[in-house]
């Protein structure tokens, strides 16, 4: 019987710094069954995803996510300061990719009614969208759990502001049975609570068209820096004038008679002060 986890001993790992040891392939992993070896990673290196991953459409985000994209078959928490502000700007490329692959996207309890014409530019056609109008927290949880348990939808995007950690753990167990990504939109204050989701992202609107994304939790070392992703709403770049594309330099086009033509937007610093791990 091989030991489950590799324990470096003096004879085989003589005084090697941790970073170098992780750069070389860990010797003990070779002895493990492949399914176990795929799920084991060193704490200082970025883990690999066990299931399928879906490219996020943002190169900077893919580079820091285990497996290079959104994980399928696992919960992903999107922590937002306010529900309904930037979910589709962040996850739209993923949803479009899933719909292109023949999956259906189910929205559970969005804060406002979804607008089908507005989702078309993301690639989410009318045959691929389902809106579950679950109003109470219990209904949302139940509907999400049923969808994850069945495992037959392309992706689940659920707004669960009041879910407790043990409920998330239950959802995570169900999500592991399917290959579909399960995105949970939760308030930013939920970052203080523990969560069973293997990936937790905290997103804010940045200057211009940018989204500022903090990776709070992932399979790997904590990420210190904030990612700046350029994410204009889908469909907008096709029609906007060139001046609007210049990020961070907003242009006022307010029809006004007074002389306040330019509005200067302060740079928003949403960096958290304390780490939440």
């Amino acid at each position, binding site marked *: 019987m091989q030991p489950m986890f590799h324990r470096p001993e003096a004879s085989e790992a003589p005084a090697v710094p941790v970073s170098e040891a992780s750069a070389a392939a860990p010797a003990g992993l070779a002895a493990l069954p492949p399914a176990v070896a795929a799920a084991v990673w060193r704490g200082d290196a970025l883990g690999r995803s066990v299931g399928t991953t879906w490219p996020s459409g943002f190169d900077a985000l893919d580079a820091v996510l285990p497996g290079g994209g959104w994980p399928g078959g696992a919960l992903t928490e999107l922590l937002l300061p306010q529900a309904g502000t930037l979910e589709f700007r962040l996850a739209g490329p993923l949803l479009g990719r899933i719909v292109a692959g023949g999956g259906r996207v189910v929205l559970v309890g969005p804060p406002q009614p979804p607008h089908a014409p507005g989702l078309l530019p993301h690639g989410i056609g009318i045959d691929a969208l389902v809106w*579950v109008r679950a109003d109470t927290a219990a209904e949302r949880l139940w509907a999400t759990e049923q969808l994850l348990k069945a495992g037959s939808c392309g992706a689940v995007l659920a707004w669960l502001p009041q879910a407790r950690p043990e409920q998330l753990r239950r959802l995570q167990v169900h999500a592991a049975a399917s290959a579909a990504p399960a995105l949970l939109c939760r308030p930013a204050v939920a970052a203080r609570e523990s969560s069973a989701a293997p990936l937790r992202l905290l997103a804010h609107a940045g200057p211009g068209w940018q989204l500022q994304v903090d990776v709070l939790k992932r399979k790997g070392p904590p990420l210190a820096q904030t990612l700046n992703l350029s994410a204009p709403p889908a469909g907008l770049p096709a029609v906007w004038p060139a001046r609007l594309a210049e990020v961070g330099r907003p242009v006022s086009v307010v029809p006004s008679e007074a002389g306040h033509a330019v509005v200067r937007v302060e740079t928003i610093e949403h960096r958290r002060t304390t780490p939440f791990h």
Partner: protein
Amino acid sequence: MPALTPQNTACGVAHARRSPATAVLGALPAALWGALSVTPNALSASDSALQALAVWALQFTPRVAIAEAAVLLEVAASLRLFGGQAALRERLWPGAQELGATALAWAPNALAALALARAGVEDGLRAPLATLLDPLPLGVLSALRPHGQTLSHIGCRTLGDVRRLPRGGLARRFDAALLRALDQAYGHAPQTHTWVTLPERFEARLELPHRVDDASALVFGARRLLLQLSAWLAARQQGTTAFTLHWAHDAMRSRGAGEGGQLTVRTAEPTRAVDHLSRLLAEHLARVTLAAPVGDLRLTADEVRALPQRSESWLPDATAGQEPLAHVLERLSVRLGENRVLRPLLCADHRPEHAGCWQPVGEPLPPGARGVPPPAWPQPALLLAQPLRLLVRQHRPLYQGELQLLLGPQRVEGGWWDRDESSGHTRHAVRDYWVARSAQAGLLWVFQTRLADEPAWYLHGMFA
């Protein structure tokens, strides 16, 4: 043996013409009989229960006959379809147990299978039939039962003892039925059967073993009926889109309770999956309050449609073990309400609140719904149900701070023909839409009303 006496019906000749060696080699037998026996005198041994078991067994083979307190089925021709005897047994036995069967036996002929089932021996193929039948007690063959006393007095305890008696004397002293039954059981004489035929309409009844007060507890009884429904559908290659569960109240009910009630369950697609149907029924029954305890259940299939079987794929199936999404959504819409599990629909209207409509997910799209062109101008991902009037400071709209207008105006005018009869106003919209940016709330879609008495700003959507 009333059910096995020769009648003017199809004749199924079953012989044990195989040598024992072929059974060992696993070659296909000329005839393979299964017997599903139930405990005599139990509730499940009633005529209707046996009929239900027989109808259920028709999904495996068209040759099903009812014997006393048992159902006999000839499955040699079905072995290949179901993937061999072990696979067939795996599908047959759990369902039969749910319908009340207590013993199962396989043998090269019907009477031997019945005798083995009564004796509790399952496999009648592992040895020559005579060596298996010889040690069985006399009671396993019904034709021997009237003579049990006499036979035991002359020292016969087993079938083998009786068989060793001289045939001439046996025929003279006892009736011819005894000798014929022995010959048939050992495969020396042919047997005839009355095959069970499938009823044209499905209707199954079940008397509950005890009174049920709670509607959701009816599911356990109804599942047995659904199992029969599913088998009936499988034998006809059909699926149901509507079925009705009727229940009759107990005789000791109060006067105002009425005779009983009924519940019709509809599905979007024809199906015969028992698990899905019983979960749907459970969701519906959870909302029912019974006026009085229920003693009797009846299930009818109202609408059935052909359900073609799909070919199996050689490639590994990515969706194996998953519940189809349509089934999950159906379950959600039963629990939450039909109008809360929705799919979108594009309508040709310039007013955004009318451009995207929603309909229940199970309903088909109306004709022409796919021909609607997408909007040329970007629209938000979320749209408020009612536009929210915004405060204005120095001619600027406010929403969680001052809004910065980025792109616009997009002029929308329409709906002068759309009259709200109750209030007498038209739903005429004359608006200038802008994409606005808020430091807190992200990108918003706001509009300014035109031509109104007092121009006002409204928030209508979020680009999210």
